[in-house]
């Protein structure tokens, strides 16, 4: 990228500087012997053009909105439109969550994000034995279309974009969303939003799987196929590194395994004859933003470049729109501390900065109290304000990819890409992500990183303010705590009982039989699920029908 003769000159000057610095350090030693990013990349004292001499501007960096999209997927980036501020929320009953949504929309939030409770995520109704104690706890409880109607009551679905964190039961919840829209008289073609629908990372890190991997991949692909023609504005999959990161992956592993998951999905879809050019536009990604600002930024930039190359060169997508990696970011839940919870506001702010400098399309900022419980309304507000300050006061949104050309950031971007490539190649060698998961390889790699991280902060090698340095004795949980109404479970079960009396149970039985029949064939299951949902079949009923056909998965333990 630079003039060779000038580089040679620079190298000599750098040697000279190194020598002077060494003698300087004899009197003024550095704070640590080694400086490293959390992914283990050594960080040099200083970076110069020499560190990025191999980079070619147009090939490796390029312009915003152009291949390989290192600098972002839009030519104007946030000068055109700011990122979507999207706070994940949902708890207790559909009524309560509906109220929180309206509040957030009034506060200037621009997208909705639904958190479901665990029974809904794992395909159990609120009255199932395994649901005891879980109903409405980590998200809203949805048993049937009736709950969904309440959840989105008075919210015009053609005006908002809705992100639903749902995976194993994604098909059912998407069907319910479509059904609600139809009842509002809205054409499904204009519906905007995302379902997570990323089952692979459930086996790796998040744990809300139901069926064995192959059956799950079929459901995922059915959804991709259905939305491609029926919901053109919808993002039917959000390939997520976030949860792997939460489980302890390094930034490099997060990047690598997410992209490797992406490859697996595209492979499956292509084998079902889906058009890679449409598929590429449907896919979105979801990453975490942690504390090491530059490594995070490098991760995002490398992710775009890697994915663009893969879509273009490996899957031969011809439409540039299919090369673009669009992503949502959430600040790192596992970086929040129970000790001195207000410190979390600061952490979240830096992480949000990294996400924005990395070119995210949407962002969730965590609330300071999430290490302790569900966030209170006040904490959610601070988190949202953090984004608004970033957007309107700091000026970081005024130019595209402001850190491009930084010798350090470019060199680190390159390094992240290289590290990720190594893992991706290893997964390929194992026959792809499904095999790597079944053999426990990915889980083991992540656990090892988690354990290493744990030992590092326990030994003080890694500083966590308020936890192993600058501690203040007993200081936990001074904030108010948000609790879910303990009555939610009872009320939800009552509603369910009532529903089962009122609906036409004869057609439910037929619907479920049809689902089972279709599950045995290659037919796309989506229309059958839509029909059942319309008739008010429950999440548990539909999931159980599929359990009968597909069986259930048990995890691989690799420690």
């Amino acid at each position, binding site marked *: 990228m630079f003039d060779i003769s000038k580089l040679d000159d620079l190298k000599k000057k750098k040697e000279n500087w190194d020598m002077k610095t060494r003698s300087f350090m004899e009197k003024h030693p550095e704070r640590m012997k080694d400086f490293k990013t959390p992914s283990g990349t050594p960080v040099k004292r200083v970076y110069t053009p020499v560190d990025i001499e191999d980079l070619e501007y147009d090939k490796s960096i390029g312009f915003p909105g152009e291949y390989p999209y290192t600098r972002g997927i839009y030519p104007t980036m946030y000068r055109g439109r700011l990122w979507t501020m999207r706070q994940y929320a949902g708890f207790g009953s559909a009524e309560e969550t509906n109220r929180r949504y309206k509040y957030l929309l009034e506060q200037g939030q621009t997208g909705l994000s639904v958190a479901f409770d665990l029974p809904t995520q794992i395909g159990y109704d609120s009255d199932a034995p395994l649901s005891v104690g879980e109903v409405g706890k980590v998200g809203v409880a949805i048993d049937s279309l009736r709950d969904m109607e309440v959840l989105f009551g008075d919210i015009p679905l053609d005006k908002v974009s809705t992100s639903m964190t749902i995976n194993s039961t994604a098909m059912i919840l998407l069907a319910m969303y479509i059904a609600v829209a139809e009842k509002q008289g809205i054409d499904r073609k204009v519906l905007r939003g995302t379902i997570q629908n990323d089952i692979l990372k459930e086996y790796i890190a998040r744990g809300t799987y139901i069926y064995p991997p192959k059956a799950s991949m079929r459901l995922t692909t059915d959804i991709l196929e259905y939305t491609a023609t029926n919901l053109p504005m919808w993002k039917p999959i959000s390939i997520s590194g976030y949860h792997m990161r939460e489980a302890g992956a390094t930034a490099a592993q997060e990047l690598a395994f997410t992209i490797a998951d992406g490859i697996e999905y595209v492979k499956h879809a292509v084998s079902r004859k889906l058009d890679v050019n449409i598929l590429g536009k449907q896919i979105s990604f979801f990453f975490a933003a942690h504390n090491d600002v530059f490594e995070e930024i490098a991760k995002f930039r490398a992710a775009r470049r890697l994915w663009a190359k893969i879509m273009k060169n490996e899957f031969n997508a011809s439409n540039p729109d299919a090369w673009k990696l669009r992503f949502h970011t959430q600040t790192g839940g596992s970086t929040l501390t129970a000790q001195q919870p207000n410190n979390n506001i600061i952490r979240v702010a830096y992480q949000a900065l990294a996400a924005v400098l990395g070119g995210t399309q949407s962002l969730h900022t965590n609330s300071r109290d999430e290490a302790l419980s569900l966030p209170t309304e006040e904490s959610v507000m601070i988190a949202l304000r953090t984004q608004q300050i970033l957007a309107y006061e700091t000026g970081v949104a005024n130019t595209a990819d402001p850190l491009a050309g930084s010798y350090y950031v470019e060199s680190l971007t390159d390094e992240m890409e290289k590290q990720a490539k190594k893992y991706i190649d290893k997964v390929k060698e194992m026959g792809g992500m499904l095999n790597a998961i*079944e053999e426990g390889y990915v889980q083991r790699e992540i656990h090892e990183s988690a354990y290493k991280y744990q030992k590092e902060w326990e030994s003080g090698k890694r500083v966590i303010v308020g936890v192993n340095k600058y501690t203040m004795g007993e200081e936990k949980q001074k904030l108010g705590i948000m609790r879910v109404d303990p009555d939610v479970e009872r009320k939800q079960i009552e509603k369910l009982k009532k529903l089962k009396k009122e609906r036409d149970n004869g057609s439910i039985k037929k619907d479920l039989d049809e689902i089972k029949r279709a599950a045995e064939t290659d037919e796309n299951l989506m229309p059958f699920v839509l029909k059942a949902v319309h008739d008010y079949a429950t999440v548990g009923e539909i999931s159980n029908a599929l359990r009968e056909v597909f069986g259930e998965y*048990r995890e691989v*333990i690799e420690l």
Partner: protein
Amino acid sequence: MDLRSNVDTLIDRFKDGDKMALAKAMTLVENGASELVDRIKSEKNMKSESEPWIIGITGAPGVGKSTLIDKLIDPFSTDNKRVFVFAVDPTSKLSGGAILGDRVRMQRYATNDNVFIRSVATRGSNGGVSYHLIDMIDLALAFGYDIVIVETVGAGQIDLDIFDISDTTVLVLMPEQGDGIQTYKAGMTEMADIFVINKADKRGADKMVEQLRVMMSTRAVRKWQSPILKVISTENVGIDILVKELKRHRRYLLSSKKIKDRERLRKLMKVKGNMLAKFEASLSKTLEGLSNEELDSLNRHEMYIRILKNFLDGKEGEDECQ
């Protein structure tokens, strides 16, 4: 009251069919109280209607042994058999600790009265199983379990204990497994009674069958020709055939009286395991007790004498467990 310190009550409750007593007896025996097995066997009326059946399931990590066992339990327990599973995992040489996670895949049986699962760490033993495993198996049989399944990691270097313990040994393989069957000790493939190629939907399954056939053709013709079965245990494919073959092998053992050979082997293994456990414990204690002067002054022969003397004097180090 801790049952483990009151052996009489423990035995009474064991005889009454109390599973907690069985579990605690297992612990005592695992820690060296082999006499307890003898006592229980002599006191409990051992009128077993059927001959016990010990099935070994072995194979490298990741081939899907636990899932296979999970699927095997069903047909056996619907036969109204009581099944005991020992899930053996290696002890960390460094710390002496272990993570025993095999039962994760069988946890649906945790509430099934006819199934008992016990995780066992290999502890001091150098082999693939713990020294006291056969004692523990005896306890399970004495308690009334009909079928005992032992799961061990049988990767390349591990020795062949499992073949001496089991009546029927299943070697589980999977396609695309490194260098394939070459990584196994020759003896392993030599001794397996049944080969299972699990995850048979993966590429290379047929090639593996072929490799095994070639290998088998070089071994001496014998009455029992070890079948090679393709299985996808996660999808319950091939399990029925495996069960049939297991039963066929058992009939073969019973009719050919081979079962007696297996029993003899097991008894020998048990004595060997018990002795090694005691000897190793005593040896360690003697070695630890040597002063530096003694280390320098005693010659090799004197050292041996000291070790053996201590062993015979009963300084076993393996004091009964509190």
